[in-house]
């Protein structure tokens, strides 16, 4: 195997913007959030991304405004640095290196990180761009990694949560512990989930796993504390936040309802329901006019005046897994995949922005665990992007399936439901595909585990029926096929649409869609066929089939096996613009010759589940042989843990670098370091002292003179 130094696997968009709580600037104009290795600055009014703050080498794990200069923001990352940025101009001001990190051991063995501590650091005042920080003091051992579990009260009091204890830590480093529900089921359910401190009063609010919120008072003496309990949430409270004046307490959880409690009159509460998905974080702007909730579906909602959703910033939705194949919409060149539950998302790869969400299921989503929800399990777009077929499935007691066909409406520029076929098959549908044939006659083939495959065709209403002429064209079943009552697995149309291959266990059957005659059968036991793919362009006479152990290539002119090789392949991808076929873990080859012209092992951690060739707007003119396969289209793939990756060739990378350098002309900022005392908390990966045990630690940085 040849090593290819000129192509590199990179993350491409779709990083989590809900990983940490976003930050609203002092003037409420900007919203800053982490996004993988970079930091994004959004406008709160237009939802537009204004700056990408790039510089961190690893995942950004914390964000906080500079208390001394509210036009600057601190960020920390797993690469062991703390950076200070000017977010209005998008400029890096200072890098602080922490000597605590051992990134190589940390990153590859995350499972060993078990001990977390809270550490305070002194950031020395400096005007240099690179600063090393050596000394630190451990404030606190073994706290939760989640920043929601640490809160700062008035003065220098700090509250942190561990399993079922709340600590109060004063300036004099005294620690109080309060315990709840000592044993049994109660103790498991009322575990602490989050904490918030009242900005004026001596009051701590804590959220619990059973949906209760407890308000603690008088906790400066260990024995005499009191607490009151309020309860609305039916499952755990995920986020708590006091408004800056302390008049209201906001809470959110799985129900996706923002609850606003009046401080002091907890009986009164307001609701903001149906925010989309469960709330992860709540942030309030310093002047209290904007609320900001970040949700589990990679979304940040900006709420104005406590009642109105004014902006929604949506990233690539990372569901529980992509059930549909990755697709590229031929019209918008957007990536199409599962989005929110019951939705398909159209995600622009060029702009790293979600274009729109298409509601497939069209039902009210009930936020409740252990509920069988309808899920979009299959989707297919036809070659011109004018039809979309989706399969939704709910597997309660018996499987409920419906097949929906959506027509593209030029007027509204979105898909409109044309036909719903409930229970198209008796069993789950394993694959659907459109025939690529041109003009107006499109055929959809659905393959199901009930042993049949069905062909669906668009039928115009019969004009002879007379009155029913206002009916639109709709889809209906044209043909039902089976083969010796075997279970079909996958289907594939040839590039010109004249042949349909359907695999039944070990057998590949080839049909003619014009007459629905069975033309031939091909088989290469042992092993059931996992995926099928026709060659393109000059290789269109070849049919590729992947089994558990073999990759086979049949010549359709002779109906015989051309070549086969022992290879564990589960996915075959044909580039629509060239002859190349790719099978992740990665080999790229032409069906005409059984020799890969590109191969790369160990692409990334985790197994590649889905991949797609996205055609480029303009072909690259890369001349190196090994990267030529990337000239026409780009290969995007999705790993097991929902990371979207792609290949970047060297010329492309150079071009991108040149672009970013232009931006990164540093202005010389005069650094004024105010002599104030404040607290700032950031969590990051560091190893604890010289121990071999690596750990995530939460740092308390006290910037002191």
């Amino acid at each position, binding site marked *: 195997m040849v090593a290819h130094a000129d192509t590199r696997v990179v993350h491409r968009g779709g990083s989590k913007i809900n990983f940490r709580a976003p930050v609203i600037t002092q003037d409420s104009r900007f919203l800053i959030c982490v996004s993988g290795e970079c930091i994004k600055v959004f406008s709160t009014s237009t939802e537009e991304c204004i700056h990408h703050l790039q510089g961190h080498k690893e995942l950004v794990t914390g964000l906080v405004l500079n208390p001394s200069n509210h036009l600057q923001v601190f960020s920390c990352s797993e690469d062991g640095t703390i950076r200070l940025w000017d977010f209005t101009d998008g400029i890096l001001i200072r890098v602080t290196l922490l000597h605590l990190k051992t990134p190589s051991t940390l990153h590859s063995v995350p499972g060993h990180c078990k001990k977390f501590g809270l550490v305070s650091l002194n950031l020395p005042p400096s005007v240099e761009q690179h600063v090393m920080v050596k000394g630190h003091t451990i404030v606190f051992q073994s706290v939760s990694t989640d920043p929601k579990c640490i809160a700062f009260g008035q003065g220098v009091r700090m509250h942190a949560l561990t399993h079922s204890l709340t600590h109060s830590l004063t300036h004099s480093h005294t620690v109080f512990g309060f315990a709840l529900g000592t044993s049994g089921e109660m103790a498991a359910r009322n575990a602490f989930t989050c904490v918030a401190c009242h900005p004026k009063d001596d009051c701590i609010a804590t959220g619990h796993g059973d949906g209760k919120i407890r308000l603690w008072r008088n906790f400066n003496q260990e024995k005499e504390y009191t607490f009151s309990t309020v309860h609305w949430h039916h499952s755990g409270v995920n986020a708590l936040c006091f408004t800056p004046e302390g008049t209201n307490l906001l809470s959110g959880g799985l129900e996706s309802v923002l609850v606003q409690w009046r401080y002091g009159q907890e009986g009164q509460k307001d609701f903001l329901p149906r*925010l989309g998905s469960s709330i992860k974080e709540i942030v309030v702007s310093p002047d209290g006019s904007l609320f900001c909730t970040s949700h589990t579906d990679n979304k940040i909602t900006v709420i104005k005046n406590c009642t109105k959703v004014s902006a929604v910033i949506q990233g690539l939705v990372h569901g529980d897994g992509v059930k549909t194949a990755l697709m590229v919409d031929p019209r918008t060149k957007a990536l199409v995949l599962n989005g929110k539950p019951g939705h398909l998302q159209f995600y622009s790869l060029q702009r790293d922005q979600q274009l729109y969400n298409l509601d497939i299921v069209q039902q009210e989503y009930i936020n409740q665990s252990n509920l069988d929800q309808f899920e979009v399990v299959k989707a297919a777009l036809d070659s011109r992007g004018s039809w979309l077929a989706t399969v939704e499935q709910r597997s309660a*007691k018996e499987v409920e399936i419906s097949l929906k066909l959506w027509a593209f409406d030029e007027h509204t520029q979105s898909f409109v439901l044309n036909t719903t076929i409930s229970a198209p098959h008796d069993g789950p549908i394993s694959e659907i595909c459109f025939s690529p044939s041109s003009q107006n006659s499109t055929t959809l083939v659905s393959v199901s585990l009930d042993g049949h495959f069905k062909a669906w065709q668009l039928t115009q209403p019969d004009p002879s029926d007379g009155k*029913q002429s206002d009916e639109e064209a709709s889809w209906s079943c044209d043909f039902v*096929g089976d083969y010796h009552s075997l279970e079909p697995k996958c289907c594939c149309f040839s590039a010109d649409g004249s042949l349909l291959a359907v695999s039944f266990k070990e057998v590949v059957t080839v049909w003619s869609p014009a007459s*629905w005659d069975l033309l031939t059968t091909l088989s290469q036991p042992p092993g059931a066929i996992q995926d099928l793919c026709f060659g393109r362009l000059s290789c269109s006479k070849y049919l590729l089939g992947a089994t558990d152990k073999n990759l086979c290539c049949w010549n359709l002119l002779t109906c015989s096996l051309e070549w086969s090789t022992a290879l564990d392949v589960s996915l075959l991808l044909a580039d629509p613009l060239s002859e190349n076929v790719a099978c992740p873990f990665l080999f790229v080859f032409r069906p005409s010759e059984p020799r890969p012209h590109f191969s790369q092992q160990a692409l990334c951690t985790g197994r590649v589940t889905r991949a797609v060739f996205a055609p480029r707007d303009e072909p690259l003119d890369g001349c190196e042989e090994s990267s030529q396969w990337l000239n026409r289209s780009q290969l995007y793939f999705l790993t097991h843990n929902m990371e979207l990756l792609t290949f970047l060739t060297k010329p492309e990378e150079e071009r991108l670098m040149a672009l970013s350098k232009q931006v990164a002309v540093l202005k010389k900022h005069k650094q004024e370091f105010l002599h104030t005392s404040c607290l700032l908390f950031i969590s990051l990966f560091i190893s604890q002292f010289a121990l071999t045990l690596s750990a995530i630690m939460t740092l308390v940085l006290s910037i002191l003179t």
Partner: protein
Amino acid sequence: MASFKPTRIQVYPKLGEKVTQDTLYWKNYKAPVQIKEFGAITSIDFSPLAPHTYAVTASTRVHIYGPFSQEPVKTFTRFKDTAYSGRFRSDGQLLVAGCEDSAVRLFDVSGRVAIRMFKGHTKAVHVADFTSHGYQILTGSDDYTCKLWDIPNSAELTSYKEHTDYIRCGITSKLNRDLFFTGSYDHTLKLFDARVDKSVMNMDHGQPVESLLLYPSEGLLVSAGGRYVKVWDLLKGGQPLVSLKNHHKTVTSLCLGSNGQRLLSASLDRHVKVYSTTNYKVVHNFDYAASILSLGLAPDDESIVVGMTNGILSIKHKRTPEDSKGAVQQKRQPAYRIFVKGKNYVPKQEDYLVSKPVRQYLAKYDKLLRKFNVSKALDEAMEQWTRLRKSEIPMAVIKELDRRGTLKNALAGRDEKELCQLLSFVIMNLVDTRFTATLTTMAEMLLDIYQSTVGMSSLVDRQLLRLQELLDKETEYQQELMEVLGMLDVLFASAHPRKEVTLPGRDVCLCSIVVHLPILPCGYL
């Protein structure tokens, strides 16, 4: 904050026939007027002259109804026993009727007492009709004879004794004064010519003949007997033309509609079927409450009159354009007055249009579902009107509750009346294939919840027994269907040519028809 997505009401394909011109035409009748007579209605005859009154023979009377009257205009009661076959003469002035006591009576329509009596038969006379010139009467009797009588001197002219069983139907030619047809329980139809002393044509129907009908051109004769309706070509010497078997019980009455374009047949199976006379396909079907004995159709299909064994006379009048128009206009008027408010305002140049947000209107059950009031939402969807007329609405709500996992909560805690209502809904719709899957779950839940209360309420117990009966019946039915399916499989297998490469397309098409029959998971009770 996204708006609440209302419950999706599934649109189910309409079961039954396709909407054609014919169904629209034959559905365009008002709700039937029902009149109770004293006994089974054996004959209905329309007067050939306007206003088309009609004679209804039931029990010992012959009533004459006006075209729109609900009370008889005239009644002839001078029968000693059951009357049969009240018929008008072609001028509408005279009426003849047979009787169980073997006498045939002739009435003046304006009079009351029989003006002539024809005695000569020895048994009940079921057939009586005027010949085309109107001076003679044809009668057929249970004594196997048919006779021709002269009206002026009430004398018997001829008697034919060729049938070997009861004569129960007969018809005279409207074009020729000497020709008439009789049908008998000896399975034969005979054409007689009064100028000859024996039958001139003989046709075998194969079943006891109940009714006869001549086309206006008199080239074709239609006979009904047993489950068959047969059409005979008289110009080809009585060759059978078509045999129709669309009823599943004896066909009792025939008549022509739409100026001879449509043929109607009524049967003991409680259906009236409408055939096209060009291809003899059934184009429409009427359902009635009881077995039908007689059928009459007013000229231009103005009304359909049906007499049943339980003595109920059902009259359907055609809906006139004025009727439907009037109804619509009445409804609209008040809405229009509100609708027009501000519509005639002409906007000025400097006016600025403030667009109002479109308000989302939710159905009552949706409003309750939004508040998670599951029991109330189910109650709302189970309102009498929607429950009976639009069962897809309660079904959609039940499905939605099931999806939310709260169906059990919604079903629990019901009192006797509500529970009965739920159970009767289940019983009503359980065997409907479109609803079976959901209702099975619901029935199981109901049984789980109310298991302990069985025996405490007679009403609930009765419903449960009904449910059990229904399921037993359904399982039996399914078993029969499976047997048929098995037989068909054998037939297909033997008929299928042996080939190396099978062509599944063809036989799958045939099989799919069978597979679409409702399948119910059996025996969960």
